[in-house]
């Protein structure tokens, strides 16, 4: 069902396109040798090129180009073998040269697509318009002094990928799913850490509203939203605002707005009239960027398995449900963990343990898969004890908790606690006989047709054997006697 917002005049559809700025993972900046790492004392990662000194020239960092191409391939997008760098001219204190080098007319990556999955299982494809490389600006600090602003150029010149989506997004949930998926792909590729809190991934959100069947109406751009949750809120807030404007007989102005999460509102930053004239033109300091198809092919061969492919393979290879597979491929590290556990074992059982008990334990202890207190090998070792019937499923839960606490191996815990499953038919038969003798009335009822009492007998026998009895053998023994 189409997501709509109900206004006074009826239902409104929303139309959203996202421009995501993703900071490229690279040692040095896009056009200089200065370090691109996050943090560092202000103005310590700045070369003369970054600071725009006279006579300094940009030299393109090949690794950043490789990262952009990898990302393009990950977005199943067209790689443009020839692209170009333009200058986007504007004056600002944290833009040392007075222009940003960007790819305005000829981006390195063209059309692509991202598959998203919504909570109800719907699968949608969001078009990618383009991906281009550009430099980040520095940072202006206005809160250090009452009268003066300070500039930190550490970030100036760091490579960004701007990933522009088609206006294919129709609800906040899709925007969230798209951003999560994009982040997942970038992290799989190792081209951006996707860390929105540190600003290494930021989104500009283009929002408009329309009545069903209408062409697009005027859109507003909400700049620099820095969390997925805020993006979803901002869309809703802005769409609601625009609906009010239209319904009150007004016009939505094309403008740039800011989202204020504290007040849950968007505010105008600048209107179209005040929009900068960026005077784009090809940067004469840089030659057109020409890449060989052979290099693109080589980069493609070096790509890791992408999340969608991995999910499909998990479904096929391990026979687990698509939903479980999606959960398991959310992060490369989780998928690797799962595969190590599942390899040569009951893959469905492995999936249940990883997505159930393990995720629960990680959540409880505030850890990630990378520092899981139970290694994949250790969890696998425990599952082996279940498979070879050394322990049953119920005891396994107890062993798992013990492993979490002590870090001991499952085998050691089973030994220490004497949890080995009893498969001795004599012992089971004796326990069965004892339970029957003590519950003669229930036996009578069962034989009188009260079938569901069977579970009661199983429970009693297990209890008598401290949970260690092989459940299948208990069932069998009970059936025989009853």
């Amino acid at each position: 069902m189409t997501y709509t917002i109900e206004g006074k005049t009826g239902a409104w559809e929303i139309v959203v396109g996202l421009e995501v700025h993703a900071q490229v993972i690279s040692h040095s900046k896009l056009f200089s040798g200065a370090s691109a790492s996050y943090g560092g004392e202000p103005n310590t990662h700045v070369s003369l090129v970054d600071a725009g000194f006279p006579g300094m020239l940009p030299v393109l960092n090949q690794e950043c180009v490789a990262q952009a191409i990898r990302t393009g391939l990950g977005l199943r997008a067209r790689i443009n073998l020839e692209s170009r760098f333009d200058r986007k001219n504007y004056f600002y204190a944290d833009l040392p040269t007075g222009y940003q080098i960007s790819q305005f007319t000829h981006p390195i990556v063209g059309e692509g697509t991202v598959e998203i999955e919504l909570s109800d299982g719907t699968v949608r494809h969001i078009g990618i318009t383009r991906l281009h490389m550009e430099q980040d600006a520095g940072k202006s600090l206005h809160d250090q002094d009452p009268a003066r602003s300070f500039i930190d150029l550490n970030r100036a010149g760091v490579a960004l990928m701007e990933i522009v989506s088609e206006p294919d997004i129709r609800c906040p949930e899709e925007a969230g799913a798209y951003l999560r998926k994009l982040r997942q792909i970038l992290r799989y590729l190792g081209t951006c850490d996707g860390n929105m809190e540190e600003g290494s991934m930021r989104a500009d959100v283009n929002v408009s509203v329309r009545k069903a069947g209408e062409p697009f109406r005027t859109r507003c751009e909400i700049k620099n939203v820095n969390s997925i949750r805020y993006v979803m809120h901002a869309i809703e807030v802005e769409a609601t605002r625009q609906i009010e404007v239209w319904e009150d007989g007004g016009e939505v102005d094309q403008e740039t707005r800011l989202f204020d999460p504290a007040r849950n509102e968007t505010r105008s930053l600048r209107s179209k009239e005040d929009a900068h004239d960026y005077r784009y033109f090809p940067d004469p300091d840089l030659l057109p960027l020409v890449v060989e198809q052979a290099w693109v092919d080589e980069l493609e061969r070096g790509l890791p398995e992408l999340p969608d492919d991995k999910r499909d393979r998990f479904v096929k290879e391990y026979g687990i449900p698509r939903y479980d597979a999606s959960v398991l491929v959310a992060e490369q590290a989780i998928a690797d963990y799962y595969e190590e556990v599942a390899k040569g074992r009951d893959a469905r059982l492995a999936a249940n343990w990883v997505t159930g008990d393990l995720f629960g334990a990680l959540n409880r202890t505030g850890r990630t898969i990378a520092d899981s207190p139970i290694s994949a090998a250790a969890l696998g070792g425990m599952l082996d004890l279940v498979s070879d019937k050394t322990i049953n499923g119920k005891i396994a839960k107890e062993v798992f908790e013990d492993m979490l606490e002590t870090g001991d191996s499952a085998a050691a815990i089973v030994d220490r606690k004497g949890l080995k499953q009893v498969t001795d038919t004599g012992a089971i038969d004796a326990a069965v006989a004892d339970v029957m003798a003590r519950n003669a009335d229930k036996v009578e009822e069962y034989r009188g047709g009260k079938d569901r009492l069977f579970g009661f007998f199983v429970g009693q026998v297990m209890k008598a054997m401290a949970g260690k009895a092989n459940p299948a053998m208990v069932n069998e023994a009970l059936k025989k006697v009853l």
Partner: protein
Amino acid sequence: MSLTELTIADAAQGLRARKFSAVELVRAHTDAIDALNPRLNAYITPTKDAALKAAQQADEALAKGEARSLTGIPLGIKDLFCTNGVRTTAASNILRNFVPPYESTVTANLLRDGAVFVGKTNLDEFAMGSANITSAFGPVENPWKRNGDDVALVPGGSSGGSAAAVAAGLAMGATGTDTGGSIRQPAAYCGIVGLKPTYGRCSRFGTIAYASSLDQAGPMARSVRDCAIMLQSMAGFDERDSTSVNCDVPDYSAAIGRSLKGLKVGIPAEYRAEGLSAEIAAAWQQGIDWLKAAGCEIVDVSLPHTKYGLATYYIVAPAECSSNLARYDGLRFGERVPGDTLDAMYEATRRAGFGPEVRRRIMMGTYVLSAGYYDAYYLKAQKVRTLIRRDFTEAFQKVDVLLTPTAPTPAFAQGEQSDDPVQMYLNDIFTVPASMAGMPAMSVPVGLGATGLPLGLQLIGRPFDEETLLATGSALEQAAGFTHRPAIRAEAAK
């Protein structure tokens, strides 16, 4: 012969033969600067002390037999090349006190080969001008005088300080930069040789940019051979300049005196333009005759888009400069005039920092790149530029080199043309097309005009074929036997 009259080639021999020391040679030039620079204003920043120190080191190297091609040779450096620890102004108030902590690739190459820098030469502000009258440090006076008067003439521009210094014996050679004629036209006005190499031959790293797609460094000296020696040092691929070209640097001196038999010399019809003075037309014909006599075949060619060269140049160059000069904002280096807001600071800083010609070109460039005008001006200019380049490519299928005048007139008096910027721009009419096409070109002095001022002819070659320019230039030089010297010069001042 006086030390300030020698060529680089002769001085290098003299130094090796210990006929004189590097200190003597350099001191002769720093003395000349002390004596004449107050009048000529060819140098913004003379660097006498550092030069004499470097000369001592040169003598040590010579004593050890470790001399390189330019060891002990006193050179002037256009004040557009950043020099480590030495003030670099671009002749602009905005960089009046700027001392770069780095060395341009071209000057680093010259230093590697032992050159001694005697100072930073004057120029038009940010290399924008054709008469060296836009410098924030005052105009340069041409050391040449018209017959019978003492009126101060312009040295041409923008490398006017370099040209005047070399002509007057205040340096044996000098670096220039050429964007639309800034090496060739002042070389012609001052009676010296100036070579603008192929775009990409010399690195632009560390050279203050005017128009990046056109700027090219080159040598200015008193002989073709000296230009070859200097270019040998200056040229080469530099990974810090993405537009520098990675191809071998040949032995340029070997081209000097090469036989020209069978060389095809093109004479472009379009350069017989209106406003070409009779004396220059005559010099051009003389040049044609000399080359014919040297065994060249003279071929009439056409460069039909020549007439659009200047108009195209004055779109492309200002467009690039409007962006290149945005970094002079008073924030990180250079002069700052405070303001209440960031914008007020920008405005005050740039108003005080830039002279009228620089402001004019920034405004023109901003205009032609603006939304709504970009297609009509900048984009169209780029298309015409492609046609201009194609003119040359087609001509070079028929001929090996082109011969034209360098400038439509000889040097003019300070104040004669400065009222009308368009009139001033016309000085570059013959030099701009080769710049737009990125072709190498050279001006060689071939004689004196009716008023006793030097006249230059321009040779334009195929990309990266500076050797043919040098070979042809040396033939012209030899035929012309140009030994005239300006009225104001070191030797005459003694």
